[in-house]
C-alpha cells in the first residue's frame, strides 16, 4: 500500500513535469511519431515481403510460356512425360486475356498474352531441376517459377531492411537528443526543487522516476499516433491498391500474405516506450546528481 502511494505521487510528479515542458512535449512526440511511422512502415513492408518470399519458396508450380506456333495441348502432353511432373494445366491465351480483363482495366488492343502451361511438380526441390529441361523444349519461349521471383523480392527486401535500420537508427538518435534536451530543461527548471528533495532524504527512485515515466509517455503517445497514421495508410493506400494488385497477379499464392498489423503495432509500442523511457533514464542519470 505504501509503495502504491509512492507510485501515485511519482505519477503526479510526472504529469507536473509534462506541464512544465509545454510545447516541447509536442516537438518530442512529433519527431518520435515520424520515426515510429517510418519504422512501422518498413517493418510491415519487409515482413510482408518475407511472407511473400516464403510463400513463393514453398510453391511447386512452374509457368511455361509457349510460342504461338505450337498447339498447347501437344506441348502439355510432351511435358507430362517428365518424371517430376505431377500435373499440367493449360491456360490458353484467350482464357488468360479474359481473366486479365476481368481484374484490370486494359486498353482495346490485340491479345498480347502467350499460351501458358502451369506445371505442378511433386516436391519444391524439383522446381529447379525441371525448369532447365523445359527451357530446352522448342515450344517453350520462357519459363518462370516463384523461386526466381522470390530471389528478386528478397533482394528488394534486404535493401528495405538495411535502409530501414539506417533511417530508424538516425531518427532514434535524433529523438533521443530531443527527449534528452526536453527533460534536461525540466530538470533545470526543477533544479532547486530536486536539490531540496535530495536534502530532505527523498529517494533516487522518487526523484528520477518521473523523468523516466515522462519519456515513456512520450513513447506511448508517439506510438499511438504512428499507429493511426499506419492504419490510415493501410485502409486508404495499401489495401485498395498495392495488396489487391499483388494478389491478383499472383493468384496461386495464399491470400493472407500481409504481416499482422497487431504485431507491428506491438513492436512500435515497445520500441517507442523503450526509446522514451531510455532517453528519460539517461538524461536524469546524467543531469541529476544526488
Amino acid at each position: 500500500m505504501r509503495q502504491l502511494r509512492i507510485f501515485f505521487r511519482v505519477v503526479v510528479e510526472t504529469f507536473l513535469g509534462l506541464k512544465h515542458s509545454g510545447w516541447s512535449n509536442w516537438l518530442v512526440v512529433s519527431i518520435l511519431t515520424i520515426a515510429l511511422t517510418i519504422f512501422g512502415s518498413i517493418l510491415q513492408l519487409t515482413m510482408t515481403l518475407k511472407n511473400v518470399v516464403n510463400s513463393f519458396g514453398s510453391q511447386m508450380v512452374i509457368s511455361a510460356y509457349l510460342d504461338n506456333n505450337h498447339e498447347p495441348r501437344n506441348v502439355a502432353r510432351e511435358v507430362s512425360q517428365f518424371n517430376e511432373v505431377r500435373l499440367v494445366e493449360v491456360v490458353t491465351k484467350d482464357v488468360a486475356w479474359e481473366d486479365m480483363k476481368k481484374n484490370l482495366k486494359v486498353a482495346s488492343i490485340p491479345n498480347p498474352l502467350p499460351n501458358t502451361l502451369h506445371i505442378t511438380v511433386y516436391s519444391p526441390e524439383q522446381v529447379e531441376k525441371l525448369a532447365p529441361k523445359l527451357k530446352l523444349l522448342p515450344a517453350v519461349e520462357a519459363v518462370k517459377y516463384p523461386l526466381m521471383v522470390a530471389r528478386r523480392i528478397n533482394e528488394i527486401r534486404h535493401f528495405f531492411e538495411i535502409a530501414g535500420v539506417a533511417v530508424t537508427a538516425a531518427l532514434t538518435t535524433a529523438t533521443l537528443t530531443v527527449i534528452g534536451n526536453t527533460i534536461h530543461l525540466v530538470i533545470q527548471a526543477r533544479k532547486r526543487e530536486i536539490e531540496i528533495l535530495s536534502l530532505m532524504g527523498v529517494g533516487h527512485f522518487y526523484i528520477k522516476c518521473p523523468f523516466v515515466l515522462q519519456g515513456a509517455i512520450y513513447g506511448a503517445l508517439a506510438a499511438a499516433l504512428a499507429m493511426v497514421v499506419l492504419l490510415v495508410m493501410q485502409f486508404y493506400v495499401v489495401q485498395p491498391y498495392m495488396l489487391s494488385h499483388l494478389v491478383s497477379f499472383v493468384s496461386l499464392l495464399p491470400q493472407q500474405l500481409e504481416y499482422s498489423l497487431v504485431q507491428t503495432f506491438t513492436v512500435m509500442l515497445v520500441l517507442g516506450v523503450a526509446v522514451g523511457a531510455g532517453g528519460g533514464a539517461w538524461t536524469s542519470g546524467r543531469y541529476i546528481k544526488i
Partner: protein
Amino acid sequence: MIRLQNVSKTYGGRPALKDVNLHVALGEFAFLVGPSGAGKSTLMRLLYREEVPTQGSVFIGGVNLTKLSSRQIPLLRRRLGIVFQDYRLLPNQTAFDNVAYILRALGVEESEVRKRVSSALNVVNLDDKAGHYPDQLSGGEQQRVGIARAIVNGPPVLLADEPTGNLDPATSLEIVQLLARISQRGTTVLVSTHDQTIVNAMRRRVISLRQGEIVTDVDCGVYEVEVGQS
C-alpha cells in the same frame, strides 16, 4: 550523536577544515560559530553528506558517513532535519504542502500526513498560515515553515546552517529560541551562525571555528568577535 574524528577537508589543496575533533551528545544544543570562511558550512555539509572528508571520519548516531553508498544517503538524510539560511521552500506549494512533501514522498498515509504536519506547524506556531504560499509569508514565517519541514519526520538530529542570516535581530532570536525548544524534546541541534547577538543571548555550548580549526569549545559560552572579523 554527532562525532567527527580527525576530520580534514581540502578544496584543490586549500584546507577548509584541519584535523577537527568534535562530539555533540544526544539532545544537546550547540552553536558552531566563526567568521565567513572559517569552515562552518563545510562542516555542516559533511554532516548531511553533501561532502566527504579528505581525511578522518564523520559519525551520526554511530553510522560512519564516509562509508555510506549513494543509495544510503537518502536514508541518512531522513534521520536529519536540515534548516537553511535561504529557507529553500517550494514556491508553488503552500506551507502545509511544503512540510508534507517529504512524508508524501515516503508514502505516509494522508491522514497521518495531516496529523504530523499540523503538529509540526503547531510547534513553530504557524497553524493559521498553513494555506499560505511562501511569498505570502514574512522571512521569519518562511524560516519557521523550514523548521517545521525539518522536524516533521521526527529526526534525532537537526542541523541549522545560518538559519538567521536573512532575518532581523528580533526574529533571529525567536528562531533560535524555537530551535532550543525543539532541542528540549530530545533532538540534537547544531546551529551554525556568525550572529554574535543571538549566541550571547542564549548562553549555550559554543564551538568556535577559525581557519578550519576548532579554537574554543565552551559549554556555556559567548561568541567573541575579533576586530575586523565579520
